[in-house]
């Protein structure tokens, strides 16, 4: 699936929720379920410091595609991070760099992008788009 197909799939998934509580419960669940990053990569170097929540991000290259893994110490941020990883991971560097992440707005989570000082999400997305430039193809 290409980046936009995954985004559309997410938008559809979220359209099923009746209210904010169901939506957040889903995000929290995703945050709880996904062991996103190998402990060895939870280093200071991989830490994207938000003002409040910490986010760790690691990238691997396989067959010309970038595989992201990430984690956060805040469960809602972790859930949001897992959404972004699901969308951007396993794509080519050019696809990642050109990606327009419209799903965040469409599923009503835009406020999490505007709170730039509160969580590391915006910095993480920025970092994910830069990372492919620094990854050596395996």
């Amino acid at each position, binding site marked *: 699936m290409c980046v936009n197909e995954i985004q559309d799939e997410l938008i559809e998934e979220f359209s099923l929720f009746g209210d*904010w*509580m169901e939506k*957040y*419960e889903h995000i*929290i669940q995703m945050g709880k379920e996904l062991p996103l990053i190998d402990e060895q990569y939870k280093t200071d170097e991989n830490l994207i410091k938000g*003002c*409040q*929540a*910490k986010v760790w991000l690691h990238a691997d290259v396989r067959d010309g595609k970038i595989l992201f893994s990430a984690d956060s*110490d*805040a*469960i*809602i*941020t972790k859930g949001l991070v897992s959404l972004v990883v699901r969308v951007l991971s396993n794509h080519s560097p050019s696809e990642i760099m050109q990606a327009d992440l419209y799903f965040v707005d469409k599923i009503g989570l835009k406020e999490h992008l505007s709170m730039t000082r*509160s*969580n590391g999400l915006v910095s993480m997305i920025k970092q994910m788009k830069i990372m492919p430039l620094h990854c050596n193809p395996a």
Partner: protein
Amino acid sequence: MKTDTLLRQEVIDVQSIRKDFPILGSKVNGRPLVYFDNAATSQKPWRVIKAVEHYYTDLNSNVHRGVHHLSQKATDAFEASRRKVAGFINAAHDREVIFTNGTTEGINLVAHSFGKGFVQAGDVIIISALEHHSNIVPWQLLCEDRKAILKVVPINEKGEISLEAFKEMLDEKVKLVSISYVSNSLGTINPIRTVIKWSHELNIPVLLDAAQAVQHIPIDVQELDVDFLAFSGHKMYAPTGIGVLYGKEEWLNQMPPYQGGGEMIKSVSFEETTYNELPFKFEAGTPNIEAAICLGTAIDYINEIGLENILQYEHELVEYCTEKLSEIPGIRFIGTADNKASVVSFIVGELHPYDVGVILDQLGIAVRTGHHCTQPLMGFFCIPGTVRASFAFYNTKAEIDVFIEAVKKAVVMLG
């Protein structure tokens, strides 16, 4: 008991007061706003909002410059506000009241000007472990510049400073003590009278960061005998961008200016510039005239309600909130000082404060989450931050009930 309650209701008629603050009637995420982020900034009453409008429709002109009618009116209002501030903190003279753009600028002003005049290599500045970054970083900058030493008074698990440790730090090398009156993160009211007394025994001046105090506790700078006092207008129902630095005349006169520009000079030539007298020596450039005038309006408003009444009412809110929160399993209060003002800071179990804040926001509740610009303090408690509810006299116990239910809901959702 019943009489007490009745009396109190007469002192703070909260329902009537709430009507003075238009924003309190708004809805957030479809729910009535519960605004518990007053330590970050307070809401503004109609009277202040209208005073802003009045300034721009009737008074707007630059101060202390023009001979024309409007400039005279603006100057009169500006200086009348300075007198109100002086009265509010009982300063001996208006000229000891310097308008700044906020507490941070006031502290930076002292760090810069006092530092330049009085701090040498090897000298010591004392702060406490409770301080806001704005009462840490200016001193670090000064100490770096002057090769001076910054010492930090430690705190105990309750979030109270150690007077014993403080006493041990005091010697002739100490040039200034800068400490918060009330901690922004924990609400601890520091034993400032003792701090000032002991410091003065060695002729060491004291700066009080009163950003979290002026709106809650009556302050008399002469009675306290404090040398410098900095606070912000926006936390006391006035607009943003205005603050006050009170300084004893004897110190301010000895200190070099902070910034150069218009207003702060007596005469300028390329060979020599002489400085204006107090307070203008420290007010370079056109000040925030509108906000300075409206600070006076906010002071009138506070005076009418009465700080003693405010103190008592807000204390009840803190007690009530603490009592109700204690019923939630896993609650851990951060800051349990015996003497506290208007702040309840906590975490629940292993829940990240950020997550709790997001859920509370969905429920229309505004609290602050995070480190509250006191990272060293959070380091002391080994936590990433707290959830902080901070109250003003327009908050109610009914709002606290809504807040408690919301915290419970967050615990269920996140747990």
